[in-house]
């Protein structure tokens, strides 16, 4: 049960029930779709990118608690950041959820609540789906991203 509580932290559950920035973004100039065939999670990330900086970011779609909370908290974390900073954050986040976290734990801020995912290897894809999709949107890729 303790592992489960580590995974389903209150913050994560709260974000999954009431996701932030959960809407279409009319001003978006970049967007990408992400799909996790394992569980059918499907998200669209909308980006308003200006001079390499994320002025605004929102998402829509459906998925499990982990993927939805991750998308919600990601939008909060990357808003106002540059492309490079967002990519760096994803790198840290990915290390965290795969159990290879190094360096300053505070650098992830609130995203550190996803540490419990590392005990559930099949759920890593859920936690990182929104991030992969964000990276695709930043790079302006048109094809849907799949975690497979």
């Amino acid at each position, binding site marked *: 049960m303790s*592992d*489960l509580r580590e*995974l*389903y932290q209150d913050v994560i559950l709260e974000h999954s029930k009431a996701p932030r920035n959960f809407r279409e973004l009319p001003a978006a100039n970049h967007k990408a779709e992400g799909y996790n065939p394992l569980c*059918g999670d499907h998200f669209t990330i909308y980006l308003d990118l200006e001079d390499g900086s994320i002025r605004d970011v929102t998402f829509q779609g459906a998925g*499990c608690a982990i993927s939805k909370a991750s998308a919600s908290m990601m939008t909060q974390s990357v808003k106002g950041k540059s492309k490079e900073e967002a990519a760096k954050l994803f790198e840290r986040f990915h290390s965290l959820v795969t159990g290879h976290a190094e360096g300053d734990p505070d650098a992830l801020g609130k995203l550190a609540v996803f540490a419990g995912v590392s005990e559930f290897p099949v*759920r890593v894809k859920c936690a990182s789906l929104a991030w992969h999709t964000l990276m695709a949107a930043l790079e302006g890729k048109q094809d849907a991203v799949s975690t497979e």
Partner: protein
Amino acid sequence: MTTAANSLSWELRPPMENGDFDVEAARRDFPILQQQVYGHPLVYLDNAATSQKPRAVIDAISRYYESGNANIHRGVHFLSEHATEEHEAARRTVQAFLNAADKREIIFVRSATEAINLVAQSYGRKHVGAGDEVLITAMEHHSNIVPWQILCEEKDATLRVLPINERGELRLEELPKLLTPKTKLVAVTHVSNALGSINPIRKIVEMAHSLNIPVLVDGAQAVPHLKVDVQQLDVDFYVFSGHKVYGPTGIGVLYGKRALLEAMPPYQGGGDMIRSVTFEKTIYNDLPYKFEAGTPNIGGAIGLGVAIDYVTRLGIDNVAAHEHELLVYGTEALTAIPGIRLIGTAADKAAVISFVMEGIHPHDIGTILDREGIAIRTGHHCAQPVMQCFGVPATARASFALYNTRQEIDVLVKGIQKVKEIFA
């Protein structure tokens, strides 16, 4: 089609007499069930994905590789003769199990999927042409959709789909409209993997045959759970996988009526499927070998034969009665939990309970149950069109086998309560 149809449990057939079936004795035959997962006794409820193997099957496969291994149909030596004999004995076991008229009608393949591809590529490519139609149903597994799509695309033919109703039953009243002179084949599942629905195959076959349309039945989810008699059903092709009926993976069966198989071109070329080869001309072997190119899965066939013997010894009717009792008990237990909606409430159902929980994604249900030692399947069950019909991205699915118990369903219910606690 999002009607909450939770209240249908009493429409299921009532539990039947199940004779002397002793589930505790049966459980002892399955070594894997004795283990703990995350500190809890394993509760294995993912039998529609694959079943566990009894000791007899595991031993038969070990014995074959320890003391019986040889290639078949060609050696003159002792081991080869013996392996050939065992392989062919397994074919006769399958023949008797399906009540096929002739052992030459039993083709060993890798899986139900391969059997369907064989029919699509051999029978299909010969008989389906531009403008023709192949009819499937809305509850098919991807394995009974995609091979026909590939065929239809190649031949410029059209794939038609018989719809289902909100309970997950075929809408048979639509069938006469969909059976036309253009229809060259009907491919339908006997039991739905995602919904549990048991389809009225005899009736479908009668309707199709009245227009001389052959019928292929996907029996992957049926043979472990109910008596199948291919002659009584009068099906033209019937396919199943060994691993879902307590046998090993990598072995499956295609049954086909002899006249149809005789007239079909080979599926794959190679050794064993030929009578003589010259660079000018090859003469194909007789049935069933014409469709068994290359060294087959000999150990797998032997294991499957032993698995079928095991089920036959317990009595498939006893197994069916036991599983139906679990279905009735489980359906009542799950529908009593607020916030649960069953997906698939056909009146005639095999022991599969697919469900969704309000506000909780099936994947989260699966993870939490897993930590309680409960193995269920979550996802689209390789039946995405079924999920679309019910307006859900995925379901959680508990599917039962002969070794499951009421106590395990109680553990499942407790696990679901835990899911609700975490998401409260």
